[in-house]
């Protein structure tokens, strides 16, 4: 965007960016440094040796995977419907969906709590998967609909003229062509599911159902506020997400650039 012609200008630009990024890097460094303070790597060993940690990890993976699969299927179907098919009162449905974006999680607590108990969902994965997915879907549909709308109509018409059904249009056009935005949706959904704190806190009560976002708080009591172990557990929790983001980073950017909110 900016055009820098001189060599000094370019160096200055680099320095400015670096200085601006430092405050963002600082807490990350503090996190890793703090996790290695005192006993060094032994902090990590202590965290990994905590009974049940792998179980918490597994719970989070199951929940995140469940949410991602559910959100992906539901979103892609809806994006095709909203983007390329004829629906009477389409915008009304779309706005009904967008209203869900304004709803904070706390509002869902009481109704879901009583409902989950009534249906026997309480303390199961579903009690967390369903509400997280329900809250993620509107944003995902918003992203994906824009993207699907960007696919030329001619492609779908050609597919229909060739005798393809609506379902074929979905399978052979929507699914493969939406891969970049799917990466963005995957990242956002993963972040939303992996990082969720409130729903597991309230809906998962038994110790073997806990998720890893509850682990640092759990250490606050367990190690009588041993910061180094808390930070070590924070690093361990963060690694899978950071790796997932790094792997999908390029698709993610392309997807946002092509669809996204404009």
């Amino acid at each position, binding site marked *: *965007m*900016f055009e*820098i012609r001189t060599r000094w200008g370019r160096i200055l*630009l*680099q320095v400015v960016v670096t200085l*601006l*990024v430092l405050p*963002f*890097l600082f*807490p*990350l460094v*503090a996190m890793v440094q*703090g996790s290695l303070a005192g006993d060094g790597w032994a902090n990590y060993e202590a965290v990994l040796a905590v009974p049940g940690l792998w179980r918490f990890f597994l719970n989070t993976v199951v929940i995140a995977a469940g949410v991602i699969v559910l959100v992906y299927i*539901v979103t892609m*179907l*809806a994006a095709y*419907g909203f983007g*390329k*098919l*004829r*629906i*009477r009162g*389409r915008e009304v*449905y779309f706005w*009904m*969906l967008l*209203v*869900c974006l*304004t709803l*904070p*999680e*706390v*509002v*869902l*607590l*009481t*109704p879901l709590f009583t*409902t989950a108990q009534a249906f026997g969902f309480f303390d199961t994965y579903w009690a967390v998967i369903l*509400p997280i997915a*329900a809250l993620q879907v509107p944003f995902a549909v*918003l992203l994906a609909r824009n993207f699907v*709308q960007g696919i030329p109509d001619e492609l779908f018409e050609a597919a*229909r003229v060739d005798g393809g059904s*609506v379902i074929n249009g979905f399978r052979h056009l929507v699914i493969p062509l939406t891969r970049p935005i799917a990466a963005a949706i995957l990242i956002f959904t993963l*972040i939303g599911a*992996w*990082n969720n*704190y409130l729903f597991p806190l*309230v809906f998962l009560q038994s110790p073997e159902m806990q998720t890893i976002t509850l682990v*640092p708080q759990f250490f*606050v009591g367990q190690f009588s506020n041993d910061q180094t172990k808390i930070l070590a557990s924070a690093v361990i929790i*963060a690694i899978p*997400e*950071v790796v997932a*983001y*790094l792997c999908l*980073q390029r698709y993610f*950017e392309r997807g946002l650039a092509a669809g996204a*909110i*404009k």
Partner: protein
Amino acid sequence: MAGTSIAERGLREKPAPAAGGGRRSRRLQPQGLHWILPALVLSVGLIYYCIWYTAVISTWDWDGIDPNPERVGAENYIRIAQDPIFWKTIQHTIVFFVVTFVLQTALGLIFAVLLHSKVKLAVVYKVIIFIPVVLAPAITAPVFRQIYAPDGQFNSVLEFFGLGFLAQPWLGQESTALAVIMAVTVWQWTGLTFVLYFAAMGQIDQSLLEAARIDGAGNFRTLIHIIWPGVRGTTLALAILSAIGALKTFDLPYLITVGGPNYATEFLGTYIYRKTIPQSHVGYGAALSIILLVLALVMALILQVRGGEKRVVR
């Protein structure tokens, strides 16, 4: 001024995204209601059910267990209107929204422009800025509790720069706790603002920029007259997301300061939680929830209308 007119012409000429194609192709389109049904059932079904349920509870005086709650009509709402802590949370939300939105927009925009300008190792910067978005508040909260502790790194940095007299217990006093929560929020969410701006800037017509340069516009004028108007839609969408995000704020204040000290970082979300779960005033919490929902909708509508003729969410 040449830059402005070129930018405006360029925007007007940009074809609006076809909402499902022209009229002729629309008639050919197959019926699609059943394609959107799963999403509607899951989100609209679940969430609207919860809203309705919450609205009903909000007229009860209920502890969450009593099978025969007392119906009290609008009493919860009347009590909220007279609740000083409620007004405090509203005040915090407004300050929080204005400060975090302005800072995130400025930083996100600057990063997006600079990283579009042939900076070396741009990917590294991008990743560093975005990683906070990926991290759970549950992960970062303990880090910031330590950084802003009286013997934490923030005070050390101040001392290092000879500003030791500014060192203070940032989270332990009413005057600074909210500022820390806002700083952490900006740290956490600037990455998202940046990524969306970065994506939007990639769509600005390069020939517009070149034309402006030929007209003699410098970097700064290009930014104001071409780039800023070019990403206006993103700014509006981000304003709506930030406003709703401010109303929804829960994780960071709850995990860093638990709404304290003395309600200095209490937000609607943390207050609803405090009332509903630890204090078991479920009816009161439900009434607060309904107020929050109404406020969020009103904010979204105002910003949408103020956005003018250009649709924000497309």
